[in-house]
C-alpha cells in the first residue's frame, strides 16, 4: 500500500491555548441561571422541569392504579391531598375516587408523560446539552430562541399545572382529547375550563417545541466544527436531528387540529361536531366530523411517538457502543433505519383508527405500511445486540438502562405487530393490550433512554459522578417493576378489558383478573418508590458527588474534551477539529481501547487502516476540509 510519511506532524489546532473571547463570561444570577442563553444551562432547566413533571405524572398514575387495583378500598386518607375528589359515601363512610376525576387523572398522566416529560424533558435536555458539545459548537445557533423555547415550555407547564387545581378539574377527555367529548363543556366537567387550559398550554408547548426544533436543525447543519462531516456525527446527533425534523413537520398539524377544536368549543363552529343530543336536547352544531379530528391528531400523534423514542435510541446507541468497547454495529444502517422510520412515521397514522368505520381496503394499506416499520425497528435491535455481542461490556448504570431500553423496545415492538393488523385490532383496540404495547415500547423504553442519558452525561453536566451502586439498585428495581406493571396488562387486554374504565367489578367476566390488577398496582407503587433512589442520587451527587475525571467512560466524542466545568462557549481556546468517526473503540493495533475523534490519523499509525493512512495527507494540508477529487488518469488504490 501507499507509503506515506507519517512523521510529518500536521498542525493540530486543538492544542494551542490562546484565550478565547467566550472564555470569561460574566453575568449575574439572573442571566446565568434563569434567563440564560447557554445551552448547557437551558438543558439543565429542561431536565429539572422534566423530573418534576415525571414525579407529578407518576403520582397521578399511582392514584388511579389504587382505584384499579383496590376498587373496594377506602381512600378517605387521600382527602388531605385530593379534597373533594374523594367522595365519601354518607352511608358507609367509605371514600372513593370521583369518577370524572379518574378520567382527568388518566388524561393528565398521559399528557404529562408524553409531552412534558418524554418530549420536552427528553429532547429539551439532551438535544440542548449534546448537540453543541458533540458537534463542536460554542452554543446553539440562536441562544435567544433557545431561551425563549424553554420559557414557553415553562409557561405551558405553569398553565397545565394550574389546571390540576381548578374546581372543575383538569382536562378529562384522554390525552388524545377526541371530540365530541372534549368539545362540549356540558358533557363532563373535564371538558370545561380544564380543557381550555389544556389547549392553551399545548399551544405554548407547540411554540416551544418549534423554537427548539428550528434551533436544533440549524445548529446541526450549520455549526459543526471543522472535520465534523455528517458521516462523523455521533448517532445521538443523528437521532436528535431526525427528531427535530419530525417535530417541525408534525406539531403544526396538531396546532391546526387544536385551533379548530378551540373554534368549535368557543366560537360555535362545527368542524368536528354534528347531530349531538345532550340530555335529550339537540345541539346547534351541524355538519362536522369527529373522525376528522382523529386524522389530524394522529398525523401528529404517530410521529410524536417517534419524537419520544428516537432521542432515546440515539442515546442508547452511544452508550452501548461506549460500554461495549466496540464500534457501533452498522453505523450507516442505524442512520438509514432512523431515516426510514422518520419517513414511515408520517404514513401510518390511521392504524389508530382501524375501528372508526374506515374502508377495509384502506385499512389493509395502513396495515401494510404499519408492518413495514417493523423492518427498520428490527434492524436497530439487531444492531444493538450485535454491538453487545462479544463486547468487553462495562455495566455502568447508563449501560444497564440502555440494555433495558433494547429489551422494552423489543417486547413492546412485537405487540405492535399484533396491533398493526387491522383485523386483530378490532379485538384489541382500546383494551389494556394497547396500554401494555405503548407503555413498553414508548413509555418505558424512552424513560430508560432518558435515565441512561442522565447517568452517562451527569459528569459532564455537573462535573461530578453519580453513585454507581445506587444506580444499579435503581436499575434493577425499575426494570423488574416495569415488566411487572406492564406485562400482565397484555393478558388483561386480551381478555377484553377496556382502557379508561373506572371500574370493572360490575362485569362478571373480569372477576378473574382482580389479583392481576392488584399485582400491577403494587408493582406500580414499588416502581415509583424506586425512583426516589434516583432522585436522592441525582441531587446528592450534584453537590456531594465525587469529582468527575475528564473522560470517565473513556469516550471518543467531543464533549469529553471540554473542561470539567465548561463555561459559556464550551472550549477554552479553539474548538477542536475532528479527524475520525466517533466509534473507534478497541481498534486493532491501537494503544488504548478508544481513540477520541480529535486524534488525527497521523498520530495513530499503529492502528490505521490503509485508506486512513491516505487521509493523513489531507489532515496535513493546513487542516482544511478537503474533498478528494480522484483523477481518472491516475488509477491508484
Amino acid at each position, binding site marked *: 500500500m*501507499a*507509503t*506515506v510519511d507519517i512523521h510529518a506532524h500536521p498542525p493540530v*489546532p486543538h492544542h494551542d491555548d490562546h484565550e478565547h473571547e467566550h472564555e470569561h463570561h460574566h453575568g449575574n444570577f439572573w442571566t446565568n441561571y434563569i434567563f440564560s442563553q447557554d445551552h448547557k444551562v437551558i438543558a439543565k432547566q429542561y431536565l429539572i422541569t422534566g423530573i418534576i413533571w415525571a414525579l407529578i405524572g407518576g403520582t397521578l398514575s399511582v392514584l388511579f392504579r389504587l382505584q384499579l387495583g383496590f376498587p373496594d378500598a377506602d381512600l378517605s386518607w387521600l382527602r388531605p391531598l385530593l379534597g373533594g375528589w374523594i367522595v365519601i359515601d354518607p352511608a358507609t363512610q367509605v371514600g372513593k375516587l370521583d369518577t370524572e376525576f379518574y378520567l382527568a387523572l388518566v388524561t393528565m398522566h398521559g399528557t404529562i408523560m408524553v409531552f412534558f416529560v418524554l418530549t420536552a424533558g427528553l429532547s429539551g435536555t439532551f438535544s440542548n446539552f449534546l448537540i453543541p458539545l458533540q458537534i463542536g459548537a460554542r452554543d446553539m*445557533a*440562536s441562544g435567544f*430562541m433557545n431561551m425563549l423555547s424553554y420559557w414557553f415550555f415553562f409557561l405551558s407547564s405553569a398553565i397545565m399545572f394550574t389546571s390540576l387545581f381548578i374546581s372543575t378539574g383538569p382536562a378529562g377527555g384522554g390525552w388524545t382529547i377526541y371530540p365530541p367529548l372534549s368539545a362540549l363543556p356540558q358533557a363532563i366537567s373535564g371538558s370545561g375550563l380544564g380543557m381550555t387550559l389544556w389547549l392553551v398550554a399545548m399551544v405554548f408547548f407547540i411554540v416551544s417545541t418549534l423554537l427548539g*426544533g*428550528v*434551533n436544533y*436543525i*440549524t*445548529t446541526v*447543519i*450549520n*455549526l*459543526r*466544527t*471543522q472535520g*465534523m462531516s455528517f458521516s462523523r456525527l455521533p448517532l445521538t446527533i443523528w437521532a436528535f436531528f431526525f427528531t427535530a425534523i419530525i417535530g*417541525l*413537520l408534525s*406539531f*403544526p*398539524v396538531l*396546532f*391546526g*387540529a387544536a*385551533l*379548530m377544536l378551540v*373554534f368549535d368549543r368557543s*366560537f*360555535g*363552529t*362545527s*368542524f368536528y361536531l354534528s347531530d349531538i343530543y345532550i340530555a335529550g336536547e339537540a345541539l346547534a352544531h*351541524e*355538519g*362536522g*366530523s369527529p373522525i*376528522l379530528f382523529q*386524522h*389530524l391528531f394522529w*398525523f401528529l400523534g404517530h410521529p410524536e411517538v417517534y419524537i419520544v423514542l428516537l432521542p432515546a435510541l440515539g442515546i442508547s446507541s452511544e452508550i452501548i457502543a461506549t460500554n461495549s468497547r466496540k464500534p457501533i454495529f452498522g453505523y450507516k444502517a442505524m442512520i438509514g433505519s432512523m431515516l426510514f422510520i422518520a419517513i414511515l412515521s408520517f404514513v401510518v397514522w390511521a392504524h389508530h383508527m382501524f375501528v372508526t368505520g374506515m374502508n377495509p381496503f384502506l385499512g389493509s394499506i395502513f396495515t401494510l405500511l404499519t408492518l413495514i416499520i417493523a423492518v427498520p425497528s428490527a434492524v436497530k435491535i439487531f444492531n444493538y445486540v450485535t454491538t453487545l455481542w462479544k463486547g468487553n461490556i462495562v455495566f455502568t448504570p447508563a449501560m444497564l438502562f440502555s440494555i433495558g431500553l433494547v429489551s422494552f423496545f423489543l417486547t413492546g415492538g412485537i405487540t405492535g405487530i399484533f396491533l398493526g393488523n387491522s383485523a386483530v385490532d378490532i379485538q384489541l383496540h382500546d383494551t389494556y393490550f394497547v396500554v401494555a404495547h405503548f407503555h413498553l415500547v414508548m413509555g418505558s423504553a424512552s424513560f430508560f433512554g432518558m435515565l441512561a442519558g442522565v447517568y452517562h452525561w451527569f459528569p459532564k453536566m455537573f462535573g461530578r459522578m453519580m453513585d454507581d451502586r445506587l444506580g444499579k439498585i435503581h436499575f434493577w428495581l425499575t426494570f423488574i417493576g416495569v415488566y411487572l406493571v406492564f406485562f400482565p396488562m397484555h393478558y388483561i387486554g386480551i381478555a377484553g378489558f377496556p382502557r379508561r374504565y373506572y371500574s370493572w367489578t360490575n362485569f362478571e367476566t373480569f372477576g378473574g383478573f382482580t389479583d392481576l390488577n392488584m399485582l400491577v398496582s403494587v408493582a406500580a407503587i414499588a416502581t415509583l418508590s424506586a425512583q426516589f433512589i434516583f432522585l436522592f442520587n441525582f441531587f446528592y451527587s450534584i453537590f456531594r458527588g465525587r469529582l468527575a475525571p475528564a473522560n470517565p467512560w473513556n469516550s471518543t466524542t467531543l464533549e469529553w474534551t471540554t473542561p470539567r466545568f465548561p463555561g459559556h462557549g464550551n472550549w477554552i481556546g479553539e474548538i477542536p477539529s475532528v479527524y475520525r468517526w466517533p466509534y473507534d473503540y478497541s481498534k486493532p493495533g491501537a494503544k488504548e481501547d478508544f481513540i477520541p475523534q480529535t486524534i488525527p490519523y497521523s498520530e495513530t499509525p499503529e492502528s490505521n487502516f490503509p485508506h486512513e493512512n*491516505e487521509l493523513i*495527507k*489531507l489532515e496535513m*494540508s*493546513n*487542516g*482544511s*476540509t*478537503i*474533498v*478528494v*477529487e*480522484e*483523477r481518472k488518469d*491516475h488509477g*491508484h488504490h
Partner: protein
Amino acid sequence: MENITTSEFKIIEEPKKQLSMNPKKFAMWLFIASVLMLFAAFTSAYIVRRAEGNWLYFELPDLFYYSTVIILLSSVTMQWAFFAARKDNLEMVKVGVGVTALLGVAFVIVQFLGWGQMADQGVYLVGNPSGSFVILLTLVHGVHLLSAIIFVLIVLNASFKLKIHSKSMSQIEMCTTYWHFLGGLWLYLFVFLLLNR
C-alpha cells in the same frame, strides 16, 4: 505504489467555514416549512370533510380577487426594494418597503371586507363547515400576514437608520422571502378554494 501529491486534492473549503447558510435565514426556511405544514393540515382536512357531503356551496367574495391583486403587487414592491438595497439605492428602499407595508395593510382590510361579502350571502363563521373553513383559512393566513407586516415595519425602520444596503442584506432578504411566501400561500389558498368549493 505511487506517492500521493497534494495536487490530487482540491481545496474547496477553508477551515471554519462550516456555515453553509446564514443560520437565521436557514431557521426562517424551517419556520416556513412548519407554516406550510399547518396549511397542508387545514386544506387536507377541508378535502376530507368536503368528501363526506353535506357541504354548502357559495360564491367566494369578489373582493378576494382584489386582495389577490394587491398581495401580488406588494410582492413586486418588496422585490423592488430588495433590488434597490442591493444597488445601494437607499431612498428607493424606503419607498419600496413603505409601499409594501401599506399594500399589506390594504390586503388585510380587503380580506376583512370579504368576510362581510360572505355574510351578505348568509355565510358566517358559525354554520356549515364550508364557510367556517374559508374564514379559518383567511384568518390564520391574515394573522401570519400581520406578523409579516411587523417584520416589514422593522425593516422600514432599519432602512431609515440606513442599516440596509448592499453589504447588509440579510434582514431585508429574510423579509422578502417571508413576504413572497405569504403571497404565494394566499395564491395557493385562493386557487384551492376556487377549485374545491
